[in-house]
């Protein structure tokens, strides 16, 4: 308001001014007329004597104008002139800021796109995920059986619709066009687009009846696939594509960037429970569906949760023997977005915090640099003050300069962020959900601009205040006369205390980052040293998805795998080969209820795995007891047998390895309810879900029992497995020339990929910490060097008076070490509180791991000592006579 008022007032002032000048001229003219001039002459004379009316009016108005605008231009011009004269300083500052601002902008973009922005569907806050929580065993994922989804759908009132999708992406082969290729497919309930409120780009969505068993095969395709394979054909709807060897009618094309339920899905099919991995008879019994739903308007999450709690109790009572029922089972309703990003949220926030720290440290460093700079410019300021510059004018000049630096740093940071984000979008190791939504938009630009200005003010303020506090005229007087008696009490160095505080702050922040990074590195090292339970070296793996249409019976599938292994055995350099339903360290939960003969029924969920004979040998999984599967076990006529892992043995025979021998006992599994099968062997535990997840009870059956539709081929080779890719692939094609293979990787690569996100996180935090350390040490060095320079004369006197070099060194070091100690202490305290937040990112390392804390503190003190010794040593090395005459 006052600003507006000022504007109106100014307008009135201007009007009055014009009026007044007109009156002045009028009066003059009349006076001249009285002397006998003609009116024309009088007017000309009056104007001549008055001067340039327009210019004078302009000058008069300028008095009222904001002085800042014009002064600002002057300051900017001055800055443009003076900054390039100090290229090292300017470049250092701009680069430091670019790293700080760029890192922050990039992380903010990620946080915003992935965590903050609502999902890009209509009314996204009404979308929820439904997941199963099993507090009893607390190790299962949140998936349902189809029956459970159907029952929720039938009886729930809180949701306008409930949908389901197959929890894992499915490999779907597309053949008949060019080379057969394996695509990422999703199985979703027919209503999935209705729930998300998304319209297909072309064609229609699934109809309700297409969810029923036996409905004609239809599929939707991604915009990407539509352009790539169908050349963007506008008539694609209604055409046929051969998917999994079955002709499917394409009913619709989804919009670009549509990434539900998985990033990179190219094919959507209805009937979510019809997963080719699971034999049809077993499908009702396995928990393979993830639920999602749209809340009714006016229904809150709590209300929906309450309703599901009731439904859950009824279901658990009615179906006690089902995998998704049990004493500890509950259903949890959560925002769909939160569920989507749950696995990356802690990582992203931690990294965001870390780049924030880096920026603060960078600001402190730049402030320190500016202080040093201001120090050497004291003469300049003093001269300007003597010439009439007011104190606030000097401060503004300094602020403008720091803002210019910040803007330059910010612009460079923006470019850095754009490149970083480009990299992030293409880094699959991050396993980032919503990756398609990551783009620096105007909001992010605004963030970068605000950040630059805020940092500019933040680090510009320190030197400005210091300058303001100084008696600049004293500076002028003194600079001619030298430092005088050597006992000059007033510190010549500007803001040494302020710089000390800055350095302590920097050190404590970088201590926190260093400890965080160290904890992650330690976790990573511990994770790497975990024995996965198999030998990953020299193993080639690939995925084979047999189309159900051509390989419709288990017999056909088993024959295919048998033939393939037989052929591979004769390939030179192949030591042995096997086929398994899934690869170790990459498995999701796939299991069933198990009971053991002669034991009371316990809640015995166990992981299920289907393998060919020789798998344990190929993977290098040690056999503990009994025997491996033989070729006989894998023939249709054989008696069914199973092999269990040690966790399984311990679950059901708690005394294992003592007590009753599990080998020779019988168990029954819920997948096919075939009856009692004999346990013939016990193998060592394998980290099936990744190195960070502990092994769970697991049992293996020969592929003849459950011949998989999609399976992994593992080939142990002599030498580099990469060299065998073509040889192995040609054996596959020799059996079936339409059969694609996919995911061709060595087992080492598979293992590394499971560590990818962790590795990247560790790497990022590690580099942030390294930058922080560097900046903090440079800051410390700067302060010590400056204060040592200040005391050069003092050192000279002390030495002339006979002080020992060691004493002087100690004197000079004490300041730097004091700062380092204070910073380290504060940093340790802060780290103690903050590392707890990253607890779930750590692996077998306590968030307050004492060894890490002590190591980092010691390391930092050593580095700090070095940073202080160098300038101190230099001061000592100087000739005392020169030092005495210093200045």
């Amino acid at each position, binding site marked *: 308001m006052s600003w507006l008022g000022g504007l109106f007032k100014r307008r009135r002032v201007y009007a009055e001014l014009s*009026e007044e000048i007109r*009156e002045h001229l009028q*009066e*003059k003219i009349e006076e001249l007329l009285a002397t006998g001039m003609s009116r024309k002459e009088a007017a000309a004379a009056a104007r001549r004597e008055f001067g340039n009316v327009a210019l004078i*009016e302009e000058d*008069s108005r300028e*008095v009222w104008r904001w002085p800042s605008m014009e002064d600002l231009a002057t300051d900017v011009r001055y800055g443009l002139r003076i900054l390039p004269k100090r290229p090292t300083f300017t470049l250092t500052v701009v680069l430091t800021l670019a790293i700080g601002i760029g890192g922050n902008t990039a992380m903010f973009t990620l946080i915003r796109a992935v965590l903050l922005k609502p999902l890009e569907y209509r009314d996204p806050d009404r979308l929820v995920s439904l997941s199963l929580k099993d507090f009893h065993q607390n190790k299962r994922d949140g998936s349902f059986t189809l029956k459970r989804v159907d029952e929720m759908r039938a009886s729930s009132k809180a949701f306008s619709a409930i949908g389901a999708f197959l929890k894992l992406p499915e490999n779907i082969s597309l053949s008949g066009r060019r080379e057969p290729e394996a695509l990422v497919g999703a199985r979703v309930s027919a209503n999935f687009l209705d729930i998300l409120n998304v319209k297909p780009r072309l064609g229609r969505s699934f109809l309700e009846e297409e969810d029923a068993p036996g409905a004609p095969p239809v599929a939707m395709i991604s915009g990407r696939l539509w352009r790539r394979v169908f050349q963007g054909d506008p008539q694609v709807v209604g055409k046929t594509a051969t998917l999994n060897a079955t002709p499917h009618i394409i009913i619709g094309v989804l919009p670009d960037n549509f990434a539900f339920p998985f990033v990179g899905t190219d094919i959507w099919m209805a009937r979510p429970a019809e997963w080719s991995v699971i034999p049809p008879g077993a499908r009702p019994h396995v928990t393979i569906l993830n639920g999602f739903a749209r809340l009714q308007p006016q229904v809150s999450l709590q209300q929906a949760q309450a309703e599901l709690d009731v439904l859950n109790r009824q279901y658990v009572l009615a179906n006690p023997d089902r995998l998704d029922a049990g004493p500890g089972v509950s259903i949890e309703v959560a925002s769909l977005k939160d569920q989507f990003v749950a696995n990356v949220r802690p990582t992203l926030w931690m990294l965001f915090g870390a780049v924030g720290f880096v920026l603060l440290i960078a600001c402190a460093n730049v402030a320190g640099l500016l202080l040093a700079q201001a120090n050497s410019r004291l003469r300049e300021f003093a001269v300007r003050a003597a010439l009439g510059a007011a104190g606030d004018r000097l401060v503004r000049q300094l602020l403008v300069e720091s803002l210019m630096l910040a803007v330059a740093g910010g612009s460079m940071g923006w470019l850095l962020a754009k490149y970083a984000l480009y990299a992030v979008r293409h880094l699959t190791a991050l396993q980032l959900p919503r990756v398609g939504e990551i783009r620096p938009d105007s909001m992010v630009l605004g963030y970068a601009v605000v950040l630059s200005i805020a940092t500019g003010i933040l680090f510009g303020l320190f030197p400005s205040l210091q300058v303001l506090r100084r008696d600049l005229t004293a500076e002028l007087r003194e600079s001619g006369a030298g430092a005088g008696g050597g006992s000059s009490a007033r510190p010549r160095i500007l803001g040494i205390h302020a710089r000390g505080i800055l350095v302590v702050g920097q050190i404590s922040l970088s201590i926190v980052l260093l400890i965080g990074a160290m904890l992650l590195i330690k976790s990573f090292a511990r994770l790497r040293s975990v024995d996965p339970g198999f030998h990953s070296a020299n193993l080639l793996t690939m995925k084979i998805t047999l189309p159900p249409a051509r390989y419709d019976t288990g017999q056909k599938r088993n024959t295919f795998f048998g033939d393939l292994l037989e052929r591979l055995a004769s390939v030179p350099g192949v030591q042995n080969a096997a086929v398994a339903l899934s690869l170790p360290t990459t498995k999701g939960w796939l299991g069933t209820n198990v009971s053991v003969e002669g034991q009371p029924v316990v809640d015995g969920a166990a992981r299920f795995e289907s393998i060919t004979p020789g798998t344990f040998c190929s993977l290098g999984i040690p056999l503990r007891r009994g025997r491996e599967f033989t070729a006989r076990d894998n023939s249709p006529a054989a008696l069914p047998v199973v092999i269990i892992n040690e966790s399984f043995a311990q679950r059901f025979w708690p005394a294992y390895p003592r007590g009753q021998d599990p080998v020779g006992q019988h168990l029954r599994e819920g997948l096919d309810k075939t009856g009692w099968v004999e346990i013939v062997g016990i193998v060592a535990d394998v980290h099936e879900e990744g190195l960070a997840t502990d092994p769970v009870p697991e049992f293996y059956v020969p592929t003849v029992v459950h011949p998989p539709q999609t399976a992994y081929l593992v080939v142990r080779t002599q030498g580099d497995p990469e060299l065998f890719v073509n040889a192995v692939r040609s054996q596959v094609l020799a059996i079936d020339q339409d059969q694609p293979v996919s995911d061709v990787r060595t087992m080492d690569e598979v293992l590394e990929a499971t560590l990818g996100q962790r590795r990247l996180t560790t790497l990022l935090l590690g580099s942030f910490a390294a930058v922080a350390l560097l900046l903090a040490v440079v800051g410390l060095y700067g302060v010590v060097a400056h204060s040592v320079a200040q005391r050069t004369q003092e050192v000279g006197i002390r030495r002339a008076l006979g002080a020992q070099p060691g004493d002087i060194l100690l004197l000079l070091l004490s300041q730097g070490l004091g700062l380092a100690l204070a910073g380290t202490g504060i940093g340790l305290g802060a780290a103690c509180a903050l590392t707890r937040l990253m607890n779930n990112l750590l692996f077998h390392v306590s968030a307050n791991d004492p060894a890490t804390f002590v190591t980092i503190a010691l390391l930092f003190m050593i580095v700090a000592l070095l940073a202080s010794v160098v300038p101190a040593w230099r001061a000592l090395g100087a000739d005392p006579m020169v030092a005495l005459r210093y200045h």
Partner: protein
Amino acid sequence: MKNREQRDFFPGAWEMMILRTLKRQPPDGYALAQHMSGTSNDVLQIIEEGSLYPVLQRLLKEEVVKAEWSISSTHRTYQLTAKGAKHGEHEVSRFENMLEGITGVLAPGES
């Protein structure tokens, strides 16, 4: 910019003279210009009358003078404020001190 330098003798000279003049009577801009050129033996006549106005505006803004439109005429008259009176005294005494010093220096050297 050049204009302004031409108009000012030294910083604050105009202000001081205006304040001094206003101390005696509250004139309008025109009368002020006339008065100043009249009493200065026309030394100030070489300067444009109009250059008074930016100075007056500055004084207005600093609230050392105030201006009123007289009811009878269409003229705006200027008056010293209390702050202005004090400020003027201070400026004049400062100037006189300085002048004394300058005169001393400029006087034919006796020392």
